[in-house]
């Protein structure tokens, strides 16, 4: 599989397959970021669309094509903050869908749904396929690159313990260690 830098170079030469590969690689990451701001599906869709349109407009200007994933993540964060600043949407957007999950049929889903937002975002970003690089994870989570490895280990360890029923209440337990504080 081609690396992101090469995909950018190919897309500059009008290679639509390379663009599709970039979309495939980073749409999940961007969705995770938008959802971490508690944006509804419509706003999330608009934010992500804007991030892609911005990438198209400056595809030929990107100085570090290898860093395209981190650039997309930073752009999405900025656009999410702008959306929150402007307030909730006033119109139906790209999509409009209720936030409620369809149904939950096994323990892991139940567990993930009950986790604090920050923790859920971290796991979701780490679970992207193909896996994001540490630099991309750092940009998606807005944490220093040096803390990515320890964060990953801590989150997976905690999740395993919860799956095994070793830790008490999911919401509170996870909040201490993986929540919105500054344990990084």
């Amino acid at each position: 599989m081609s690396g992101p830098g090469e995909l950018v170079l190919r897309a500059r030469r009008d290679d639509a397959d390379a663009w599709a590969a970039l979309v495939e690689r980073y749409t999940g990451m961007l969705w995770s970021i938008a959802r971490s701001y508690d944006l509804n599906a419509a706003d999330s869709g608009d934010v992500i669309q804007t991030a892609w349109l911005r990438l198209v407009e400056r595809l030929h200007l990107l100085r570090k094509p290898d860093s395209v994933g981190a650039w997309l993540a930073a752009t999405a964060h900025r656009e999410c903050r702008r959306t929150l600043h402007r307030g909730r949407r006033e119109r139906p957007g790209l999509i409009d869908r209720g936030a409620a999950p369809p149904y939950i049929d096994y323990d892991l889903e139940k567990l993930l749904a009950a986790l604090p937002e920050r923790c859920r975002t971290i796991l979701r970003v780490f679970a992207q396929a193909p896996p994001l690089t540490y630099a991309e994870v750092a940009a998606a989570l807005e944490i220093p690159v040096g803390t990515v490895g320890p964060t990953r280990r801590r989150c997976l360890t905690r999740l395993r313990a919860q799956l095994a029923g070793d830790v008490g209440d999911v919401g509170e337990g996870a909040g201490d260690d993986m929540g919105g504080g500054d344990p990084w």
Partner: protein
Amino acid sequence: MTDDEELLGQIRAAFAALDPVPALVRDAALAAFATRRPWAVLAELSADSAGGTPAGTGVRGRHGPRLLVFTGPGSTVEIEVTGDDAEREIAGRLAPPAPADLVVRHPHGEVTAHADRAGHFVVPRVPAGPVSLVFVLPDASSIVTSWIRV
């Protein structure tokens, strides 16, 4: 496959069931590629009264019309956005002043207009959502503004 990778695979599957990425989001990302105009000069957002730009904000307060400034090499575009929930009106000025054909691009099509000799333009009935302005100058060169959401 390590245990971690296996667990992450299960997490991925669980999120795909809990909160899947809507197909429309993917489709919009694929369609974005068609907006590419590498030959045009890019004017980037440099100020936005709605906030959130790196260069600082405060062109005007949060109430009243939204003012935005785009700056490119050798040109500036200032716009004012007004309108109701579904449709916006975009009025503005291209500097240095020049008559130009103007196309306001949005995800579902485009709206055309003209800038007069003073570089002034008014574009009614722009659908709310992402937009980008394209100016085609008399010498056939073009300027595009960065995509913004109005």
